């Protein structure tokens, strides 16, 4: 009885339930995934442009005259190796081993650099032979698509070096782990795009 008397006497109080606190960076992975998906759409547009324009040689060189599949195979291997070494970097990061993580990241960066060097060599070779981007619609769309992918790899390497500096300075703190995981997604995503490039551009180009 006493308790009902007390509650009857006081004003009922309603609380707006406050949104519970989110851990810092809790939504970063999803946000970064959404960025990757929008990046995927950029590549889809470039693939579509290449698919439409890829046959317009303007009496210039065709894929068969330009592409060297051995070189592309080596290039693909470089990117695949860099993917697995980045995976090893993530595994050592999970164990909290700073030196091993740094070493695997460095190996990944070197494979990335090898990929870029081979691609730049291929581009310079093509341009030397007169297959410049302004030669035909095929070459314009080729350089745009493959160049955009190469640019992504370049920025990936810049990001990798930045994160290695961060890890060297602050160790494997939570923020650095999160950043490394974002770069991991970015790096593996670039590998997925490269599957599309070597299939759709190089292999199908040789079949044409």
């Amino acid at each position: 009885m006493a308790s009902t008397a007390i509650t009857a006497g006081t004003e009922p109080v309603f609380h707006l339930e406050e949104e519970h606190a989110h851990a810092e960076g809790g939504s970063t992975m999803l946000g970064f995934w959404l960025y990757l998906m929008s990046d995927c759409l950029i590549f889809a547009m470039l693939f579509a442009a290449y698919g439409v324009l890829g046959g317009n040689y303007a009496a210039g060189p065709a894929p068969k005259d330009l592409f060297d599949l051995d070189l592309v195979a080596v290039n693909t291997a470089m990117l695949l190796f860099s993917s697995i070494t980045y995976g090893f970097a993530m595994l050592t990061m999970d164990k909290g081993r700073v030196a091993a993580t740094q070493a695997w990241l460095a190996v990944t960066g070197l494979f990335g650099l090898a990929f870029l060097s081979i691609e730049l060599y291929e581009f310079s070779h093509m341009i030397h032979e007169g297959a410049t981007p302004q030669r035909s619609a095929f070459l314009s769309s080729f350089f745009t698509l493959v160049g955009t992918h190469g640019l992504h790899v370049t920025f990936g390497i810049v990001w990798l070096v930045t994160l290695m500096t961060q890890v060297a300075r602050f160790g494997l703190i939570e923020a650095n782990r999160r950043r490394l995981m974002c770069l991991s997604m970015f790096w593996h995503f670039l590998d997925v795009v490269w599957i599309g490039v070597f299939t759709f551009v190089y292999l199908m180009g040789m079949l044409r």
Partner: protein
Amino acid sequence: MSAHDHAEGHADVHGGAAHGSFRGYLTGFLLSVILTAIPFWLVMTGAIDDKQVAAIVIMAFAVVQIVVHMIFFLHMNTASEGGWSMLALIFTLILVVIVLTGSLWVMYHLNANMMPGLHDMREMP
């Protein structure tokens, strides 16, 4: 940092995002080496005479390899981020399919119909 802190921090940061294991990465790597080598071999040796069939086969290998990468390297599954990353992926895939097939289809027919001398324009509606 103790083991307990470590585990807790992880649970906070990426709620339920799957983690790779050594086995998973190695499986993914071996599969993608095989799935890369076969199409390259097919095209380099010209093992399939019919070019259209060859193109379809290497496209199929690419699709399988993309799925392998998604599962073993990007750790995609229906549970991570409460299913939102999978939803975003499906939405993106639908857009990609519309963009690619739409562009190729429309432009192919445009090319076919705009060939000079193919039609007599006076007969067009």
